[in-house]
């Protein structure tokens, strides 16, 4: 079985510490050189085609950039203040605020680890001061952080949309209800635990604080409004303004303006050397200098570096996808599965298991590029909605991120909270249970994912 050879090669390379991108690319090249008569030149062409031919993927660097501008500033702090004002007075309030803050930050950023770092660094410390155990704090943030890839905009969803050619707009809409639901389930679980264990609660600071903190945070939160209204328009009033990729570019320019000129956490007007933040009137030249300021350059570079590492994996995964399609492997797998008598239920269980195991070892977007085209034709054959399948895959990635032994978010949380990996694993376990129930709900109740996109954008046409 030549295909088995291909996959063993990928796994073997990964295990000895070859970068994911090279493992995928090298296995594909070897496979093509041995089993087909493809030339190296056409592989190089496929590599370039990953960028030139996939307009959808272009949204990823822009979303990364927007979220980098947002996280350099004190946006996380402002969001946390707002969420504490809203729910901090409940029992276990600070933990619930942490989840709420993660949900809002997830709406500004498309990545889970980024969400954990931005919210976790602040909230975990605050929770310990308020008398929560370190373990509980870490467990909450570790799980809530996974919402980063489920609540739109989400990089993983863009990757799925590009890999199987469905609409990014639909995927984003489909993530809204599941995202809110998952957040709500976590909050309820925390509330129940807090009641039982009699955890501390904050004081109610009144509606004034809610209003004030909301006004402060609203500049950041407006980003999600720009994206959503830009992609979908206002129902009944106006149509869509731009494509998801353009929305991403507009939102990064917006995020730059907010960070430099409104919040003034970075750029020429920021507070430094003991000086207060400057107003634009005091230094009008900032309108020009902000574009070339050291902070701007640094944020662009950091976002660029992240783009490079992610997209290099995706480009190589696309070479592998190219190999798989050329060898008609998805069809072969589909036939094998169908002739084995797999129904939709069994099929989804298999998808769940593959992704949970794969998600342990690989960066979610790279894994998705490979697995999505493999299972997609089977799903269509079995009558599963492509958007629904996408959401299932995203939720699986979420759980993969917090499943021991090597979930990505576990690593990140253990770093952020400064505690050993094993205690984070134990701490995350109770909430992992909640997310598992959530996964089962998502898998077997398609309406949770498909209701919103079908209502707003009309039912989907499935082209075989």
């Amino acid at each position, binding site marked *: 079985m030549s295909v088995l050879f291909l996959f063993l090669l990928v796994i073997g*390379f*990964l*295990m*000895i*510490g*070859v*970068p*994911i*991108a*090279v*493992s995928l690319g*090298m296995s594909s*090249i070897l496979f093509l*050189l041995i089993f087909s008569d493809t*030339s*190296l030149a*056409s*592989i*190089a062409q496929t*590599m*370039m085609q*990953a*960028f030139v031919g996939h*307009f959808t993927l*272009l949204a990823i*660097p*822009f979303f990364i*950039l927007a979220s980098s501008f947002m996280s350099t500033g004190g946006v996380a702090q402002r969001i946390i203040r707002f969420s504490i004002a809203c729910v901090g007075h409940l029992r276990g309030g600070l933990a619930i605020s942490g989840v709420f803050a993660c949900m809002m930050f997830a709406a500004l950023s498309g990545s889970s*680890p980024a969400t954990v*770092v931005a919210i*976790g*660094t602040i909230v975990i*410390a605050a929770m310990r001061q308020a008398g929560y155990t370190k373990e509980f704090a870490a467990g909450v943030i570790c799980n809530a952080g996974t919402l980063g890839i489920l609540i739109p905009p989400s990089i993983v969803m863009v990757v799925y949309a590009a890999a199987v050619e469905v609409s990014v707009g639909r995927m984003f809409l489909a993530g809204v209800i599941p995202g809110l639901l998952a957040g709500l389930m976590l909050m309820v679980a925390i509330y129940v635990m807090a009641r039982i264990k009699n955890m501390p609660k904050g004081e109610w600071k009144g509606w004034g604080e809610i209003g004030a903190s909301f006004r402060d945070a609203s500049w950041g939160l407006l980003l999600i409004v720009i994206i959503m209204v830009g992609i979908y328009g206002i129902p009944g009033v106006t149509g869509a*303004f*731009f494509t998801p*990729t*353009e929305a991403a*570019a507009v939102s*990064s*320019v917006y995020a730059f303006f907010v960070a430099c000129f409104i919040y003034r956490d970075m750029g020429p007007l920021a507070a430094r050397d003991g000086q207060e933040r400057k107003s634009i009137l005091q230094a009008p030249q900032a309108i020009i200098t902000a574009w070339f300021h050291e902070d701007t*350059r640094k944020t*662009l*570079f950091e*976002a*660029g*570096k992240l*783009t*490079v*590492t*992610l997209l*290099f994996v995706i480009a190589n995964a696309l070479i592998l996808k190219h190999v798989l399609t050329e060898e008609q492997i998805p069809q072969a797998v589909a036939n094998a599965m169908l002739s084995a008598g797999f129904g939709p239920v069994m099929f989804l269980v298999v998808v769940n298991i593959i992704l949970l195991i794969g998600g342990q070892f*690989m*960066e979610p977007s790279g894994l998705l590029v490979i697995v999505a085209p493999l299972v997609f034709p089977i799903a269509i054959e079995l009558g599963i909605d492509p958007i629904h399948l996408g959401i299932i895959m995203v939720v699986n990635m979420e759980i993969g991120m917090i499943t021991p*032994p*090597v979930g*990505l978010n576990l690593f*990140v949380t253990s*770093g*952020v909270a*400064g505690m050993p990996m094993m205690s984070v694993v134990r701490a995350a376990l109770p909430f992992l249970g909640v997310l598992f129930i959530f996964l089962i709900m998502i898998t077997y109740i398609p309406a949770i994912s498909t209701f919103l996109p079908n209502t707003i954008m009309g039912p989907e046409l499935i082209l075989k």
Partner: protein
Amino acid sequence: MQSKPSGGFIDTLEENLIAALLGAMTLLTFANVVARKGFNSNILWGLEATVFLFGWLVLLGASYAVKKGAHLGVDVMINGMSESRRRITGLIAIAVCIAFSFLLLKGSWDYWANFANLPKTEGRWFPLGFEDKFLAKGWYELDDIPHPSILKWMEDVFNEGESYNKMPRMIPYIVLPISSALLLLRFVQAGISVWKGESDRIVASHEVEDEIDEARAQIGD
């Protein structure tokens, strides 16, 4: 956690290039939205230029990421190994990477060469000299990006004096051979440093290692 600090002229150059490419992509796309919505016009070549900038960003950035040990990978297995074994596995991993970038370099050259009126290499996977006869394809053009007038001289060199309407294809695609050559160079350098025992791996386990180090430092304060 071997993210290496930046410094030095080449580092700065590469970092600025990464920042500039991403900035240019963003502004170009944004400007196109403004042109369409605000002025009812269109930067016709905007999209094509953006996707090529995108390709340049990732392909050129890939070699920078090798230098900084920033490529994503799995380090669970190598973390559990003894030091000497880790070194050997590291060297095997590097060998795979070097082979990969070498094959990619040959492929890139073969793909690009004819567009620049240069010969491809012979051989299926190892270059065995250059081909004698080939079809010069220097006249291939892009779809939308206009040919800048400073590059007028290219018409005499590559197109027998005939004028280019659009930018010739060899210009954006030159990034393929350049970036894979750089990639090869960086992997060889990484191999040398593992050989000397200065580092033991070329991968980072996730994308926020730097940020976590910062957070650790804050907790330590």
